[in-house]
């Protein structure tokens, strides 16, 4: 069965520091991978997605993620974190084809120190 693991429940970084949020997935075929962000009182917003091709994908708000098949990982990165990036981040895998439901990880809460 498909699954997503986000090993870090909570991460704190200083403003201006770099960020990497980890995501590992379990899926038999080539997965469709997503990162969503959830701010308090807001709906989930898509940051970026990977389907095929270039394994380094760029997203909104300066985020990027790299798909590594050998490690079954899809880690999210940002070179310089802003205070407004404080939120909860969810990695998700889509089963592909015409069935679009997503399987989410448990999320990583990001806090940003001034």
């Amino acid at each position: 069965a498909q699954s997503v693991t986000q090993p870090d429940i909570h991460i704190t970084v200083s403003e201006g520091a770099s960020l990497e949020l980890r995501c590992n997935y379990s899926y038999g075929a080539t997965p469709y991978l997503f990162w969503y962000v959830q701010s308090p009182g807001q709906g989930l917003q898509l940051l970026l997605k990977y389907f095929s091709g270039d394994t380094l994908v760029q997203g909104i708000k300066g985020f990027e993620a790299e798909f590594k098949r050998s490690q079954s990982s899809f880690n999210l990165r940002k070179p310089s974190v802003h205070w407004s990036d404080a939120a909860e981040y969810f990695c998700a895998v889509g089963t592909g084809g015409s069935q679009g439901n997503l399987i989410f990880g448990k999320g990583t809460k990001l806090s940003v120190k001034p």
Partner: protein
Amino acid sequence: GAGVSQTPSNKVTEKGKYVELRCDPISGHTALYWYRQSLGQGPEFLIYFQGTGAADDSGLPNDRFFAVRPEGSVSTLKIQRTERGDSAVYLCASSPDSNSLNEQFFGPGTRLTVL
């Protein structure tokens, strides 16, 4: 344009009662998804519609949960004989169609509390 809206934003009910949660998708989106997010967890898939029909309801936890989308637009998630374990945020998302390549646009959710 308008995004996905969900009403009510908060619902408090007593154990054993019936509740309905409403989702208004983005106009023209044919795919609609319901997820449930418990405290400290990621969203968990419940059911999705392509048009009026439920294409996959494998995530519904039991027969107390039911959802409809009679005209292919607004959807209602119905929970009978609510239990305390049903307390969660119920999220709705819509997409142009159910193809996995399409982004799902999420609403702000309905927070259900069962006392």
